[in-house]
């Protein structure tokens, strides 16, 4: 018997085992690839819930308000990264022919981002719980405090408009992915 015989047989066996394993996997565990819209829907829902908690310091108390304010930066980044192509695309075409809706959304989103940065920055400057817990103490300046309140209130208003601008997308994808109801109309793709 040639010495190479068992080696060929072994390779064959391994290949057939691999194929069988793949077949078993494909039949027992169907592919559950999540679409980017589905991920976006869940991230946006989480972002909204955290944002509501952040905007309610009277309900959560100052320490939770401050710590959650740091946490909310993560879904914000994901939210922006998921729509990065849209942001780049509109930035490039802003002074050319862009639909009025998209242009309005773009300006509104910049305003929202600016207000978010101002609220976060001023929030850090007037921190009463989070920074002192980390050993950093600051004197609370009434100017930063009033700017923080102002930017947070304005941000709440702009969030309302932002949500309304994407209301169709929100309702469609919340029904489809969160409530798992069958879609009544065609799926609305993308956040913008």
């Amino acid at each position, binding site marked *: 018997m040639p010495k190479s015989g068992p080696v060929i047989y072994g390779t064959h066996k391994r290949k057939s085992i691999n194929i069988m394993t793949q077949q078993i996997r494909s039949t027992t565990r169907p592919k559950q690839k999540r679409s980017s819209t589905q991920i976006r829907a869940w991230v946006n829902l989480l972002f909204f819930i955290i944002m509501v908690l952040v905007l309610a310091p009277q309900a959560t108390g100052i320490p939770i308000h401050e710590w959650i304010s740091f946490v909310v930066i993560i879904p914000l980044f994901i939210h922006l990264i998921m729509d990065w192509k849209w942001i780049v695309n509109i930035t490039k075409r802003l002074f050319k022919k862009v639909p009025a809706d998209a242009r309005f959304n773009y300006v509104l989103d910049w305003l929202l981002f600016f207000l978010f940065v101002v609220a976060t920055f001023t929030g850090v400057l007037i921190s009463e719980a989070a920074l002192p817990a980390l050993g950093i103490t600051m004197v609370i300046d*009434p100017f930063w405090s009033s700017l923080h309140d102002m930017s947070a209130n304005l941000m709440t208003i702009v969030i309302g408009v932002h949500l309304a601008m994407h209301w169709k997308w929100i309702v469609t994808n919340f029904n489809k992915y969160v409530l798992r109801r069958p879609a009544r109309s065609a799926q609305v793709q993308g956040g913008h």
Partner: protein
Amino acid sequence: MPTLKDAVLATLFITIFSALMMLGVAQLDSSAWAEGVRAEYSTETTSGEAKGGDAEDGFEGMSGPLMIVLGAVASALKISLLMGIPGLITIAVRRRQSRSANQSPAGTAAS
């Protein structure tokens, strides 16, 4: 889904841009507006009109659980009004716009 390169670029851009914005906002510290707010606050403090902390605005002297419930209700109301009213107005305006676009000759031709 964005690529890893896109994600890194976006993260860098967002971080740098936020830092620049913060630097810009920090310049307000020495502005006349800031001085005005500080002067107003010190006048209020000396005349005894200063309010309490953020979490306890309007709820001083109340017991713990009641304060939490009232705080939650007040926050829910505030958020609902601040988000809801502009949101409803926006939805109404958009519906009106799309209706008028559908009724116009160009809209009819397009559809």
